[in-house]
């Protein structure tokens, strides 16, 4: 089924709540090919052109359509708008996947290594969930953590992102030089209006994590009115702070025996090193 407008799609979902809304299908077809999923019906969202672009709203926010592909987000005009999201989209996968994979699909799939998720968490984006005759706004972190999940018959339509007009950085560590799943990713945005640094760490946990204490501490270290420089030692300490906050001591522990041993596991030490380097570099690039 290929509805051409948002209303048709929402009506189709209301008529068949078991149907799966499909945009890029890159995650869905992987599950179908592996035999993990047998969809009862498909509602294709590829024809809904209104969801494939973005618009601006008063108050300095951009409203991104859920059907925005990663390839579209990679283009220079979008990169000038939200650079961290463009960086995340650029590294999300090979061209074959980026050409069809969408922003909304990335949020709804909520894969731990989803590259746009830490950026959206750091930007404190909100999403619009539409259903027949109604719609509601949910913070993206509530959606990802399951505080306020997508209900049957609902469709993720818009992603509301604040335009901060400040440096944003997305960094990602992978197992190889080509496109690959992130072992850890860090998104860091500056909010000069509120004098805040917002940081999110992806791929180390099922949802992106926000080290709130580290953010508040490092925001106090920055000279916001001057040259926005930071002592390199403070940057390194910020990295350690973020890593300690996001990676628990028993990370990667298999079973109870390893969990009760003293000190962090080897996997935790390794991952903390990765995260701390990513966070330090992200802060350094944002303040450069």
């Amino acid at each position, binding site marked *: 089924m*290929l509805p051409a407008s948002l209303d048709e799609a929402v009506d189709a979902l209301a008529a068949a709540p078991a149907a799966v809304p*499909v945009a*890029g*299908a*890159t995650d*869905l*077809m*992987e599950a*179908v*090919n*592996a035999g993990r*999923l*047998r*969809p*009862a*019906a*498909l509602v*294709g969202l*590829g024809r809904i052109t209104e969801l494939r672009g973005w618009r601006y709203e008063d108050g300095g926010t951009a409203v991104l359509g859920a059907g925005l592909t990663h*390839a579209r987000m990679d283009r220079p005009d979008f990169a000038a708008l939200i650079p961290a999201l463009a960086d995340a989209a650029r590294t999300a*996968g*090979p*061209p*074959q*996947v980026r*050409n*069809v994979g969408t922003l909304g699909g990335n949020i709804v799939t909520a894969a731990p290594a989803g590259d746009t998720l830490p950026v959206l968490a750091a930007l404190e984006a909100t999403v619009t969930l539409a259903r027949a005759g109604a719609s509601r706004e949910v913070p993206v972190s509530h959606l990802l953590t399951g505080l306020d999940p997508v209900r049957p018959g609902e469709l993720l339509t818009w992603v509301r992102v604040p335009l901060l007009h400040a440096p944003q950085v997305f960094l990602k560590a992978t197992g190889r030089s*080509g*496109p690959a799943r992130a072992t850890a990713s860090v998104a860091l945005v500056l909010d000069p209006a509120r004098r805040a640094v917002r940081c999110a760490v992806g791929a180390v946990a099922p949802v992106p994590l926000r080290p709130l204490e580290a953010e508040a501490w490092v925001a106090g270290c920055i000279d916001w009115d001057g040259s926005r420089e930071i002592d390199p030692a403070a940057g390194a300490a910020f990295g350690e702070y973020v890593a300690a906050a996001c990676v628990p001591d028993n990370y990667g522990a298999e079973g109870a025996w390893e969990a009760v041993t003293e000190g962090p596991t080897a996997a935790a030490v390794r991952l903390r090193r990765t995260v701390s380097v990513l966070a330090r570099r992200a802060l350094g690039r944002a303040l450069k």
Partner: protein
Amino acid sequence: MTTDPIETLDADPLGLAPQVSRELRPCASYTLRVNGFERPVTDAWIGESLLYVLRERLGLAGAKDGCEQGECGACSVQVDGQLVAGCLVPAALAADSEINTVEGLSAGGAASDVQQALAASGAVQCGYCTPGMAMAVHDLLQRNHRPTEVEARQALCGNLCRCTGYRGVLAAVQTVADARALEAEEAERAAAAAAEEAAAEASAEAGAPVAAEPSAVETEPVIEPPVYADAEAWIEHVPQQPSAPEQDQVQVQATVEQPYGDGGYDTGVYDTSALTAMQPGIPAQVADDQVYYQPQGYPEQPYQATPAHGTYVPAGYPDGHQQQNGYDTGYDAPVYEPTPAHGTPLPGALHDGTPPHGTPYPDPHGAPADGGAPAGVPTTGVPHGATPAHGIRLPEDDHAS
């Protein structure tokens, strides 16, 4: 009218698939536009990927099935002008989209310039990734006429090749980009020259300058020779409705019979008349409506089987080349001679071949060959020098006791 048991047998001859109700296995019928042709797909499960439908239902096996996860890029096809992984596209949702596969690259059977460059630059080894590579390179050069090496690498990062590495592919990208740029430049120059000529003629005839229309100038299209000599004789298979039997007799000379029957994987046949016209020297052999055709470039002599071991093969050939075991070696190879049987004296050697077992060794000191045992050694009944048979008491055994 067919009965139910026959239908189920046809659908599943081994009876392996369990009977699934329609609610658990929702199906759909749709039409795909593949390489400009409308291809109907009937009653296909909605979870089937575009790759599966192309390969298994439409018989277009160019896109390969590597990982089914979008990692390898062997299944790359273009949907609405965008390069996608065919295994990650639900075929039912690609209905009415413009789908281009690697079969569409080689229009009329001739390989496209990308494919020729890939083959020429050694980018093909096992060939499994090559259709995806060709699509990726094609897609890259459509969007970017002069890609840098970094851009080419980024465009090809979704195509995994475990045989050759990517050096050959990158070389092919540069080759095609250079060739296309040269072609475009030449076409531009030719158009400019023709426009100038037309303008000069017009001004000479009319006496007034007339603006020449560049669109009116017809540039001769560059006709490249097909890679395969028989490419022009290939008739693309067009699915036809089964006709009434009395019309069959009329249609025979107009259409070529389908060798695999209706609905098979037949994709085309060779046109006999075109083949003989193209290759006058070699008659096409027609048997049972199937055309067998021997391409040029092979020796026209009949096939010679490899001779058995020990067979004598004539050494020289009238054209000066050496012919060995039926193959033209092109150089003066040493003539093979069969190994002589055991015991045959070699012509060049001084010694007379290995003697058969039990033959006494010849004594180099001139001692008598047989029965000439030295005094004091008891005779064992075995000629001196030869290995005694088992169980025969040797003189050395006396010292042991």
